[in-house]
């Protein structure tokens, strides 16, 4: 059983992502990477919380979270991203059933939803900048854009990655070489969602109060 083995749904292993040593390494390594990302984002969250609403000369910033954030937009973004998490679960479901077309399709839908999310975020940032709340405006603005922007950058990276996977593998079907790749990409996508849960809670909801 190796990369070149051709599988049928009946012969496809239960855990294709971990059926080879390489796959298993990738799997464990990626989880560890995610553990590392937790601390990475924690550092950004911590910085954001310390600098929230802080402006020139330590006074309150001229823009505050209350004045700035618009929850309806955030709500839509949240729903879109949560849904994309489910669609990637569907993709993995089909992957485990050795249904390549299903995998590709659901991954594709995930990418589309991710792109919508990213579009909304860009729209949001653009809106704030037009209000005068740009990156160099205050410590608060720097911290806000850096935290949310880092998440956005992760989304962007995820989009590129999954798109590349879809295209690169479009002609060859599932095998033990690419199954782990799909799997960790899906993990990554879930993690992006996890981070967003905290962003909408800590940044937007708690900010809007």
């Amino acid at each position, binding site marked *: 059983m190796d990369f070149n083995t051709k599988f049928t749904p009946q012969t496809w292993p239960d855990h294709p992502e971990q059926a080879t040593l390489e796959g298993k390494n990738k799997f464990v390594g990626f989880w560890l990477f995610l553990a*590392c990302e937790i601390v990475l984002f924690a550092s950004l969250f911590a910085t954001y919380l310390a600098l929230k609403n802080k*402006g020139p000369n330590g006074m309150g910033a001229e823009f505050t979270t209350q004045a700035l954030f618009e929850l309806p937009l955030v709500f839509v973004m949240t729903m879109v991203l949560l849904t994309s998490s489910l669609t990637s679960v569907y993709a993995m479901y089909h992957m485990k059933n050795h249904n390549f077309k299903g995998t590709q399709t659901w991954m594709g839908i995930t990418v589309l939803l991710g792109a919508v999310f990213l579009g909304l975020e860009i729209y949001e940032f653009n809106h704030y900048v037009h209000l005068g709340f740009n990156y160099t405006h205050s410590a608060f603005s720097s911290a806000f854009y850096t935290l949310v922007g880092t998440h956005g950058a992760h989304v962007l990276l995820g989009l590129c990655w999954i798109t590349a996977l879809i295209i690169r593998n479009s002609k060859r079907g599932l095998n033990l070489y690419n199954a782990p790749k799909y799997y960790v990409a899906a993990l990554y996508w879930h993690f992006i969602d996890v981070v967003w849960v905290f962003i909408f809670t800590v940044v937007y909801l708690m900010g809007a109060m």
Partner: protein
Amino acid sequence: MSSIAKKKGFGATVWDYMTTVDHKKIAVMYLVAGTLFFVLGGIEALLMRIQLVQPNNDFVSAGFFNQLMTMHGTTMIFLAAMPLLFAFMNAVVPLQIGARDVAFPFLNSLGFWLFFFGGVFLNLSWFLGGAPDAGWTSYASLSLYSEGHGIDFYVLGLQVSGAGTLISGINFLVTIINMRAPGMTYMRMPLFTWTTFVASALILFAFPPLTIGLALMLFDRMFGANFFDHTMGGNTIIWEHLFWIFGHPEVYILVLPAFGLFSEIFATFSRKRLFGYSSMVFATILIGFLGFMVWAHHMFTVGLGATANAIFAVATMLIAVPTGMKVFNWLLTMWGGSIKVTVPMLYALGFIPSFVAGGVTGVMQAAAPLDYQLHDSYFIVAHFHYVIVGGIVLALFGSAHYYWPLMFNQMLSEKLGKITFWLFFIGFHCTFFVQHFLGLMGMPRRVATYLDNQGWDTFNLISTVGAFLMAIGVLTLVINVIITAVKNEKVGRDPWGDGRTLEWAIPQPVPFYNFRQTPLVRGLDTYWIEKQEGNTEGMTYAEPLGDIHMPNNSIIPFVMSVGLFIASFGALYNMDADKGWSIYLLIGGLLITFISMFVRSAKDDHGYHLHVEDIIAEEERLYGKKGGHE
């Protein structure tokens, strides 16, 4: 396969190293690069010590001194101590656990080249307008105020090399989790593997705060962000926390593998199983955990409030308990053993009193109100050189002698080794012991000079003399290496005679696939067990001789790192208004990196299979006899 048919010639060798993914060759590269940076950092230290030899000295200017001091600390920690430890981890850990290579050979190479180019980038600052000068801690207010590009070199250089470290850390974790030979349970892993494991876990959690801190600093300097600019609502204490949340675990990242190395040496040369193995493992993990709860002991005088100081003080003191466990276990390993004083053992013997002395001054500093006096004084400098030089550097030198036969199939001269040890050891105590008193006598650290009549002159003189003794010691080691290389006498397997762990069971020179057949591990100290049972083969095998799957060499890690190296210059000069061209460097560099990444992911790389005939042929080439099982 082609990689067996060895190409000859200098160019081919260089190319081989540039593209290699073999952990043993990467270990050699870490060793060479780390040593170069160590000597560089040492020379910086010597220059500082010359400047401080007498009051009001003007051997170097104040600004230059600050650069020396900053680069000395940064180089030693990031570019010397850590890579040298990585050298031994790479050389030893896969062999200790019975693996053919690390989990991600490609990433292993990438980790090295990122570290290397990050380090080169940082050091090029000397020639490009001045090195960073805000201390290795680079506290935000001063580092934002600092003119020129020094701090930018620091930020970008550490960012690049830090990425390499993180990659290596994950790599070791996965290797140890997934690649252990059959029978090698967690509680049978040699202690160096265990400490590598825990240190890598610390890397996993400690480097992200540094990455973020550096990024924020970069954004402040490059894009006008305001994280640390208090006039815009920023806060410099954020940097201090981020730095120390990283910085404190970092010192355990350094010292834990050193502990592991000494554990191997103690057991080997006491001819005895490591005393209290399971408590050693437990202590290692506990130190790792506690290491994340104490960082604010570097910030007692920052004004965090009495409660925070009290909590962090007590938490810090707790670390003495697991560390003490280790010390006593080492002592009890010797107790009842058969101690042979070889050069590695000499280093281990020198380590105990030196490290304990450094450790206990650490506990003194943990007493917050006392630290109000000690902080930022030479007492601190004494403390951390006692633990670092007395712990890590002694471990590195000791292990260099210990593992030299494993890595190069040659033995360093024991006679010269002893001379090295005594010169270095005496020099070390001479340099740093008196610094405790300098600190107590009111001498702040990081001073480029000092006025006379403050009672500090004699001790500073002694300290400088000691530094030169250390330098002579290091030179002796270098000479020893050269002589040994020229002599080129092969020593073969288990040259110390008392090897206990799997790495000593492998025939020398180690073939590039490490184990012809994956070994079966039947207990702690496998090789010792096999030897006791009279197994001349040195190991029991878990599988019949068969094809071996090997990874392909690749130049991509090198190219990717070069790309980031170039991009770093672009980012750096992009901060100057008059250097419009820099943006092309930035984009070009990033393009190189991204394209190589793309090539890597788009081009399938399944590695290759080494067939039984190839293995037998290779063993014949190496050992001159018929390879493989009869």
